[in-house]
C-alpha cells in the first residue's frame, strides 16, 4: 500500500476528511519551502501537494502564476524540488508528498530519470496538469511500477466514460476540479460539486479530493461534507505572497488559515 493510500484509508477509518494544501516549491525562496512544509504538517494537514514551478502555467490564475515567477527567479528547477522533498523526508516519513505541475520539466529531465529520482527523494504521487490519460500511456506505468501514484484530474466537463477511464489510470486519489476555470477563481458552487462528486463515487472506489475555489473553513467544510478531502491552493499561495519578508510571520499566517479548516473538517459527522 502506498503512503497516500495508507493515509487516506486511516482517515476514512476515523471518519475524517483529508486536508491537502498546495504551495509552489521555491516560493518565496527555495531555502524556505521545507520549513513551510513542516509547519503545515504541524497545523494538521494530511498530504502536501508541492507545485513544480513552470514558465507557462496555463491552468493557473494570477496568484500561482506569480508564485511560479518568484520561484523561477530563484532558480527552482525540478531537481531542486526533488532535493527539497529529500530534505523534508529527513524528519518526516509519514506525510505523503504529491508533485503537481506541468509536463515539460519532467520531459526535459527524462521520464525514467525523473521517476527514479522521485522515488529516491520520497515523493509519493505525480499530478501533471497537462497530461491527460490519453497521452499518459507510456508515462503512468513508469510511475506505478515504482510505487508512485499517478493522480489525474476530473472536471465538471468530464463524461462518465472518461471518469471510468481516468480512474483506471489513477491510484491514490482522483482530483476533482470544482469548476471550469483557472486556480484561484471564485466560482465554486457547492451544490454542483456535491452532485458531481456523488456521481464520481458511483463510478470509482478511489477517494475523491476536491480542489479549486476552497478559501476558508466554510467552503472547506461544505466541500469536505461531500468528498474525501479538500485541496487548498491559491489562498495559501496568496498568503505567501503577502508575507514574503518574514518567514516566522508567514508560518503563523499559514497556520491561522489551516487550523480553522482542520477544525471545520473534523466537525463533519461521518
Amino acid at each position, binding site marked *: 500500500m502506498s503512503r497516500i493510500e495508507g493515509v487516506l484509508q486511516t482517515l476514512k477509518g476515523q471518519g475524517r476528511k483529508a486536508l491537502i494544501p498546495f504551495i509552489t516549491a521555491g516560493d518565496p525562496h527555495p531555502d524556505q519551502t521545507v520549513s513551510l512544509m513542516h509547519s503545515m504538517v504541524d497545523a494538521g494537514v494530511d498530504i502536501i501537494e508541492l507545485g513544480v514551478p513552470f514558465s507557462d502555467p496555463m491552468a493557473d490564475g494570477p496568484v500561482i502564476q506569480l508564485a511560479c515567477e518568484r520561484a523561477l527567479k530563484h532558480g527552482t528547477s525540478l531537481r531542486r524540488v526533488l532535493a527539497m522533498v529529500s530534505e523534508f523526508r529527513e524528519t518526516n516519513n509519514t506525510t505523503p508528498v504529491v508533485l503537481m505541475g506541468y509536463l*515539460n520539466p519532467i520531459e*526535459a529531465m527524462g521520464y525514467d530519470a525523473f521517476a527514479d529520482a522521485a522515488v529516491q527523494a520520497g515523493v509519493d504521487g505525480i499530478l501533471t496538469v497537462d497530461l*491527460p490519460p490519453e497521452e499518459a500511456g507510456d508515462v503512468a506505468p513508469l510511475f506505478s511500477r515504482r510505487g508512485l501514484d499517478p493522480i489525474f484530474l476530473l472536471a465538471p466537463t468530464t463524461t462518465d466514460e472518461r471518469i471510468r477511464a481516468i480512474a483506471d489510470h489513477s491510484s491514490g486519489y482522483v482530483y476533482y*476540479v470544482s469548476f*471550469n476555470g483557472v486556480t484561484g477563481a471564485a466560482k465554486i458552487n457547492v451544490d454542483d460539486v456535491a452532485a458531481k462528486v456523488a456521481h464520481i463515487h458511483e463510478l470509482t472506489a478511489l477517494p475523491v479530493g476536491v480542489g479549486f475555489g476552497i478559501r476558508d473553513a466554510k467552503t472547506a467544510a461544505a466541500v469536505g461534507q461531500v468528498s474525501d478531502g479538500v485541496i487548498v491552493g491559491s489562498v495559501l499561495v496568496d498568503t505567501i505572497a503577502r508575507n514574503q519578508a518574514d518567514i516566522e510571520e508567514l508560518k503563523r499566517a499559514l497556520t491561522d488559515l489551516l487550523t480553522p479548516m482542520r477544525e471545520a473538517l473534523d466537525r463533519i459527522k461521518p
Partner: protein
Amino acid sequence: MSVKLTEEMLAALPDARGHFGAFGGRFVSETLMDSLMTLEKEYLRLKKDPEFQATFDKDLADYVGRPSPLYFAERLTRETGGAQIWLKREDLNHTGAHKVNNTIGQVLLASFLGKKRIIAETGAGQHGVATATVCARLGLDCHVFMGAEDVQRQSLNVYRMKLLGAHVHAVESGSRTLKDAMNEAMRDWVTNVDDTFYIIGTVAGPHPYPLLVRDFQSVIGREAREQSLEKTGKLPDALVACVGGGSNALGLFYPFLTDESVQLYGVEAGGLGLESGDHAAPLCAGRPGVLHGNRTYLMEDENGQIASTHSVSAGLDYPGVGPEHSWLKDIGRANYVSVTDEEALDAFRMLTQVEGIMPALETSHAVAYAVKLAATMDKDQMVVINISGRGDKDIHTIAQLDGIEL
C-alpha cells in the same frame, strides 16, 4: 534522410490521437478534453459535408477574394540572377494576410457548433484582425488576447481590431508576447468553455487544431500548384515560406508533400543570430518538448522552462512551432533555416523597391532566404515565395529603426 511520402501515408496523419509521428497530441487540462473531442468529431464530419465545404469555398472567393495571384517577380528575378522567383500573393487577401483563410473556416465551425463567443490569441495582430473581421461579419462577441509588448509594436492592428468591434486584452504576464497571449487565451477558454470557441491562429495547439488549420490553409498550396502548372507547365523546384507557428508554410507545403522534386524551405526568425541565443528558431536550434497542448520542437532551457525569444517580427516571436513541421523536419521532407532581423529588414526594403510590394516583416524572412536560394539555382528553375502578409502594419517599426517619427 528523406522519406518518400505517399497520399496513403499523409491520409493516416495525424493518427486518431492527433499525433504526427512523435509530435502533436493533446496535452491539456481535463476541463478542455471534452470540448476538443467534440470539435474533432464535428470537424471530421463537416470536412466531408458538401454544404460546409461549399460555404467555405464561397466565402474564400467572394469575401476573401481568392484565388490569390501567383505573380512572376521579373525584376527581382533579374536582380537576383538565378532561378525565376514567383510570389504567391496572400498579401492581397481581405485583411492583408493568409490568416483569414483559417478564421473563415473556424468561424464557420463555431457557427455549426452554436458558439456565440469567440476568443483568439495574436502576435503581430494579423490573426486578431482576421478573427475580429469574421466576427464582425457574423455579429459574434470577439475577444483577442495579445502580449502587452506586441500591443505596443503593432498598435495599428490593435486599433483595427477595436474598430471591428473586438475586445483586445493586453497580456502583462511572462514575456508579454505571443506565447503569453496563448496562455491567457487558454485560461479564458477553460473558464468559458461552455459558450466559447477558441480560434487558434496557427497549426499548433492541441489536436484537432493543427489538423484543421492546416486543412483551411492548404488552399494556398492547392492554388499555387494549379497556377504553377498553368503558367509554367511544371511544378516549382522550391517553395519558401516563413515559419512562426507555421500556418502559411504548411498551407503552401501540404499539397506538394508527395511531389518529391519540390524542395521545401521553412524560414525561422534568426533574430540577432542563432549563436546569440536571441532568436525564435525552435526547429533550427531547439529540441522537442510539450507546450500549448502539443509535443513539438521548442526553445527551452535545460530544466524544461520555456525560453524567451526574440524577433523583430512579432508574428514569428514564438518559442514553439506546429507539430507537423517538427515531423517534416525529422523525416527530412522539409528544410528549416533561419535569417536574422537584419537580413529580413534588408529584404523588406528590397521587395518594396524592386517590385513595389511591401511585405510583412514575417514574410520578409522568407523573401530574404528565397533570394539567397534563387541565386544558387539555374535560370530555368522556379522558386515560389509565400507572400503571407503585407507590411503596412510594420511601417511604424521600420520608421523607428530609421529614426523617423511618424
